[in-house]
């Protein structure tokens, strides 16, 4: 352990002696610099290590000059100060390394002096126990920053530096005034001494003025709205290395000082400051960033927003009246936020300097080639946006959990801001990950960014560990190990076939692990996910060629996170895995070459859903129980929370009002992933919906209304999506709407909340996996062979792909619900359930929807397989073997289940019984005849009858048939003409043009357009509101004064 004074002294000495050392040459100066940094870093690291391991328990107090406090100045290194110092020195070292390896400007040696001073100042700021001394260190820090900001000698950085000087001076003036008045007031400048003299009842008068001045000065440094125009200019104009230190380290020092001062001064309104300034800053920055074109300024907005969030958290931590575990959570949230922001943001700033491109639009395709850069960038962006399992996610989670329940609106607003954050961050990600011809050269060293990211990953791991440790949520170790395996696949890459085999192996292993699982709701879905995932992942191999190395790891990750959802025992763990699933599926969808926009929409919708769920879960928490299990309910908020939680599931199911992401995301996602997206992933919404209906809705006041509304949503979804599907010309988009439409049926079944309804929903869930998996897999194969997903370009493929056609036909028959295949059972159960409840209108819409569905069923069969075969597909082969195998397996399944529905119904019966029902709602009469209250139906007989009648017809035909010749494809009776090409007689485009004339008002994309309008409206508004930052120093200064007056007004006069 090193005496903290030594750190400051040595750094100071080194800084000032560099002026002399420069005569020994550049290398020597660098050596001194690095030695100093290394020493400082190891010193603070040793202290921090001491705190971490518990060797040091009390803050280290150092007296300077031998005078005891309060007379002498003293330093104190407490736990957080030490940690923060480590972070600051680490980031500082990285920034310095980055700068020195950039190799364009020659910053030494003056810059090194300033750099050391900056680090020194901020460390001192953290360590000092004296208010005046604090001012001194703030001044040192600020002056060093002014110089460093201006070091990048161009107009914008000079301007930024000048603004910083002016505003910074105002800030330090207030700090100094505060310190002076404090001395007058308390006769001392020692923090502890002053603190002991203050009691909250004495607030008012001069103490209030002191506190306001002091804190106000710090608030300016914390870049809070509306006093942060200068900060954004710095982020935009200054050298990214400097910005990285400022944003990643120094500002955090100010933050710590702010929190500590607030504690010592016992300022009573700190929560109000947090709520007014912190929350406003957070929201405003997250929205203002939407239309930002300059990437550094964009990150600047993000940094400012994070600081706002930190101030808000500090408000809650210091003045929110948190007790016990809540306080711990909030503290952890703050720590995680700080760490997350320091490491991610500095990485991002490093990367902006590596690419040297400021305009966002020019970042198009940056990440295309470079795997390392892509990983660094993605990790930072994901962590910043709060994606699991990165540290930002855990921070947000802790934060939300710790906020007292009466501040629910804060939760909503913060999550709203988080959605806004995702919107602009992933707009950026969309641009960077899209295809482009642009070539980029990495200018500089990638080491600092990599080091940062490495630390970030380690911290993410630790924070996740801490989360589970503190919330006492149990999570399956096996699952985590398998997820780790996915990460290993990601890191090492391997060859594609090995990845495939490994993925299958992981899933099989999971299936082996859970083979004896109890068939209740969770067990049912667990088996469903694993078996379905195994089958569908098997088919991905041929089509995975097009996608990047991360395809299989992410695929496994998303499937395993679904397993996590099914295994979840509390809402929170469900939420965690839910988010994991959303984000990993987003990253997979994003790999589709045209899917960038679509995946962005998907992500934003998912985020809205996920955060709605989180806020709903927040409402469920009561008292000390911050991690509600499925059974726990707080009566008062249940309706709202149920609706909020349901929103997430509805969005994942893409039902009627929130369906807008589905078409493009399904249509453009990688062909190998679409079956999983449609067959399994959307079923997680079903799982959640059943959970909600079973566990939450019974406790709500309006459950019957909600259920009927849900059924109506489901029915309208089923109808309109089936209608939309008929007018799509892209095969995957037809199937996308079809999927959504089928999920609408499942939703009806759930909303019925009767045993028969659940049976129908569960049956249809599995059945939908079978046939939609089959169809999507077949389509993947067809696209693989033909190279197009545009329906009018296909046609006649039955002649080249008979096996696929057979399977596809069976899939379509199942989809249409025609007996004797398995589709009919689901329809029959659902209709029986609806009849039982006498929901006539729902039944009408549902049945009608299934009629409308025939339109697109026929369209798919005809335009892909029938009609004329084009010349360019003459040599097309049957789909690749893995796909063909999966097709046949699924086709066999649908046939088997069609003959014997009990293959699925046995499972669903068990689930329904485990949900507390007496029986499945229907009964067996004899071996095969199924009887409900209203009707009856014998699947076995129907199958035998259909096959028998078909055989009889065939035999009859061969008895009487004429001499049959198979003719060529253009030998058609075409008014005596000879058709000149297959294209000229193939009817494949806009099959339902006539129908369009009848239904045109219903098929216009009203919902999509209104979402677009809302988004564009907000974007236009924030783009306009962004003019708040005029770039004019006078305005900024004016805002500082106005804010000061405002603070005085509200606190001094006690308006609140």
């Amino acid at each position, binding site marked *: 352990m090193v005496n903290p004074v030594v750190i400051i002294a040595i750094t100071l000495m080194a800084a000032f002696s560099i002026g002399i050392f420069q005569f020994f040459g550049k290398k020597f100066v660098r050596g001194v610099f690095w030695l100093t940094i290394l020493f400082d870093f190891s010193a603070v690291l040793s202290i921090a290590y001491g705190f971490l391991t518990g060797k040091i328990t009390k803050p280290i107090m150092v007296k300077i000059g031998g005078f005891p406090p309060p007379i002498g100045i003293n330093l104190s290194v407490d736990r957080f100060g030490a940690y923060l110092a480590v972070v600051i020195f680490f980031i500082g070292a990285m920034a310095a390394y980055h700068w020195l390896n950039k190799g364009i400007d020659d910053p030494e040696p003056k810059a090194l002096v300033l750099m050391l001073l900056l680090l020194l100042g901020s460390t001192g700021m953290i360590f000092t126990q004296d208010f005046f001394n604090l001012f001194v260190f703030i001044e040192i820090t600020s002056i060093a920053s002014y110089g460093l900001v201006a070091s990048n000698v161009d107009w914008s950085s000079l301007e930024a530096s000048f603004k910083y000087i002016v505003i910074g001076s105002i800030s330090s003036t207030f700090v100094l005034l505060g310190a002076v008045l404090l001395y007058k007031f308390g006769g001392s400048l020692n923090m502890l001494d002053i603190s002991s003299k203050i009691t909250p009842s004495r607030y008012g008068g001069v103490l209030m003025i002191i506190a306001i001045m002091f804190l106000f000065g710090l608030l300016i440094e914390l870049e809070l709205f509306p006093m942060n125009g200068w900060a954004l200019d710095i982020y935009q104009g200054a050298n990214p290395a400097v910005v990285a230190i400022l944003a990643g380290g120094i500002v955090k020092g100010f933050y710590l000082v702010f929190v500590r001062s607030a504690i010592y001064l016992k300022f009573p309104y700190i929560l109000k400051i947090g709520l007014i300034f912190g929350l406003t800053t957070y929201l405003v920055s997250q929205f203002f960033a939407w239309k930002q074109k300059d990437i550094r300024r964009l990150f600047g907005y993000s940094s400012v927003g994070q600081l706002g969030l930190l101030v808000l958290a500090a408000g809650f931590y210091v003045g929110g009246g948190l007790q016990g575990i809540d306080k711990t959570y909030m503290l952890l949230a703050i720590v995680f936020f700080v760490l997350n922001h320091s490491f991610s943001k500095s990485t991002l700033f490093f990367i902006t300097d590596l690419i040297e491109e400021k305009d966002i639009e020019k970042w198009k395709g940056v990440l295309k080639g470079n795997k390392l850069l892509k990983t660094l960038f993605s990790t930072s962006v994901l962590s910043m946006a709060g994606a699991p399992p990165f540290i930002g996610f855990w921070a947000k989670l802790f934060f939300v959990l710790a906020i007292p329940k009466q501040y629910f609106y804060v939760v909503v607003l913060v999550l709203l801001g988080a959605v806004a954050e995702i919107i602009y961050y992933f707009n950026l990600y969309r641009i960077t990950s899209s295809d482009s011809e642009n070539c980029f050269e990495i200018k500089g060293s990638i080491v600092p960014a990599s080091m940062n990211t490495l630390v970030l990953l380690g911290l993410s791991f630790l924070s996740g560990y801490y989360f589970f440790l503190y919330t006492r949520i149990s999570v399956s170790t096996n699952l985590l190990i398998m997820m780790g395996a996915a990460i290993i696949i990601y890191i090492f890459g391997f060859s594609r076939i090995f990845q495939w085999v490994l993925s299958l192996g992981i899933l099989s292993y999971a299936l082996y692990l859970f083979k004896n699982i109890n068939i209740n709701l969770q067990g049912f879905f667990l088996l469903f996910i694993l078996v379905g995932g195994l089958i569908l992942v098997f088919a991905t191999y041929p089509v995975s060629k097009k996608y990047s190395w991360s395809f299989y790891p992410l695929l496994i990750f998303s499937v395993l996170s679904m397993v996590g959802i099914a295994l979840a025992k509390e809402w929170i763990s469900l939420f965690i895995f839910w988010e994991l699933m959303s984000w990993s599926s987003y990253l997979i969808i994003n790999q589709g070459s045209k899917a960038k926009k679509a995946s962005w929409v998907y992500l934003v919708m998912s985020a809205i859903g996920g955060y709605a769920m989180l806020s709903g879960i927040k409402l469920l928490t009561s008292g000390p129980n911050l991690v509600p299990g499925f059974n726990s309910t707080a009566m008062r908020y249940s309706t709202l929370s149920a609706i909020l939680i349901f929103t997430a599931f509805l969005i994942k199911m893409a039902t009627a009002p929130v369906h807008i992401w589905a078409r493009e995301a399904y249509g453009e996602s990688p062909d190998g992933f679409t079956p999983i997206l449609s067959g399994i992933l959307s079923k997680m919404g079903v799982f959640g919906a059943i959970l909600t209906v079973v566990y939450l809705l019974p406790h709500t006041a309006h459950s019957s209304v909600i259920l009927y509304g849900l059924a109506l949503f489901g029915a309208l979804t089923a109808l309109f999506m089936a209608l939309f599907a008929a007018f799509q010309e892209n095969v995957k988009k037809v199937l996308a709407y079809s999927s959504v439409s089928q999920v609408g049926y499942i939703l009806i079944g759930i909303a019925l909340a009767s045993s028969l309804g659940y049976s129908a929903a569960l049956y249809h869930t599995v059945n939908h996996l079978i046939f939609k998996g089959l169809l999507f897999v077949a389509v993947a194969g067809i696209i693989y062979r033909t190279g197009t997903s545009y329906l009018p370009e296909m046609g006649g493929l039955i002649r080249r792909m008979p096996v696929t056609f057979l399977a596809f036909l069976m899939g379509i028959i199942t989809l249409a619900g025609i007996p004797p295949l398995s589709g009919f059972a689901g329809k029959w159960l659902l209709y029986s359930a609806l009849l039982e409840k006498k929901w006539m209108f729902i039944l009408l819409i549902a049945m009608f929807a299934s009629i409308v569905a025939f339109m697109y069923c026929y369209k798919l069969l005809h335009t892909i397989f029938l009609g004329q075969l084009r010349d360019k597909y003459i040599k097309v082969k049957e789909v690749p073997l893995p796909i063909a195998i999966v097709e046949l397996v699924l086709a066999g399944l649908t046939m088997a289940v069609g003959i014997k529905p009990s293959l699925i119904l046995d499972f669903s019966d068990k689930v329904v019984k485990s949900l507390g029902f007496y029986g499945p709602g229907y009964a067996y009469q004899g071996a095969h005849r199924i009887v409900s209250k209203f009707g009856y139906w014998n699947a076995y007989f129907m199958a035998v009858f259909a096959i028998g009648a078909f055989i009889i017809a065939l035999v009859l035909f061969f008895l009487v048939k*004429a001499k049959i*010749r198979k*003719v*060529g*494809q253009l*030998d058609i009776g075409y008014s*005596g003409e000879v058709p000149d090409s297959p294209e000229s007689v193939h009817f494949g485009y806009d099959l339902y043009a006539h129908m369009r004339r009848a239904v045109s008002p219903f098929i216009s994309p009203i919902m999509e357009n209104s979402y677009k309008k809302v988004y564009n409206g907000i974007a236009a508004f924030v783009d306009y509101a962004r003019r708040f930052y005029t770039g004019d120093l006078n305005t900024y200064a004016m805002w500082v004064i106005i804010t000061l007056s405002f603070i005085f007004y509200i606190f001094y006069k006690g308006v609140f």
Partner: protein
Amino acid sequence: MKDNKYFLDDRPEKISYSEVWQKFFNWARAKSLWVVAYGTGCGSIEIPPMVTSRFDAERFGVSNVGTPRQADVLIISGYLAVKTLKRVIRVYEQMQSPKYVVGLGACTVNGGMYYDSYNTVNLVDQYVPIDVFVAGCMPRPEAILAGFAQLMKKIKEGRADGWKQYLDNLDKYRKNQEKVIKNWKIPNYNW
């Protein structure tokens, strides 16, 4: 266009004519004549009156169909140009056996008033086997019905074997056809 990819290029085979219960089936064939009317010339205007209320051919079992695949009778209604002859051949060969052809009007018999035209085929029966000619320029619907009565009689008696003649003497017919159709663009055999 002799591309096997698009068209079946096999030569149609000869078909045995005899069958059990031949008389009965011939009666059925005679009583159910589905007509594809190829409106090559002015005669096509006489077909609609024939099948609608005034003359009502349906009472004899004669009705219109829109496709050669289902038709039993091909009506060549009036003069045939070389260009239309190609289409007639294709339509005729696309019909399923047994099939019959009725030629309407003087033009199909020997060119009629267009006997010296550079573009009117004079002797249609050289190119497709005609079972019944109906004379007149143009024949009235009554005359056409009379022609159909003749055709029915021939079918019942088993004498309406133009389709068989055509299959038996395909080479001869082809030679004649190819003489006037200089550029044989249609497939070798129309299926």
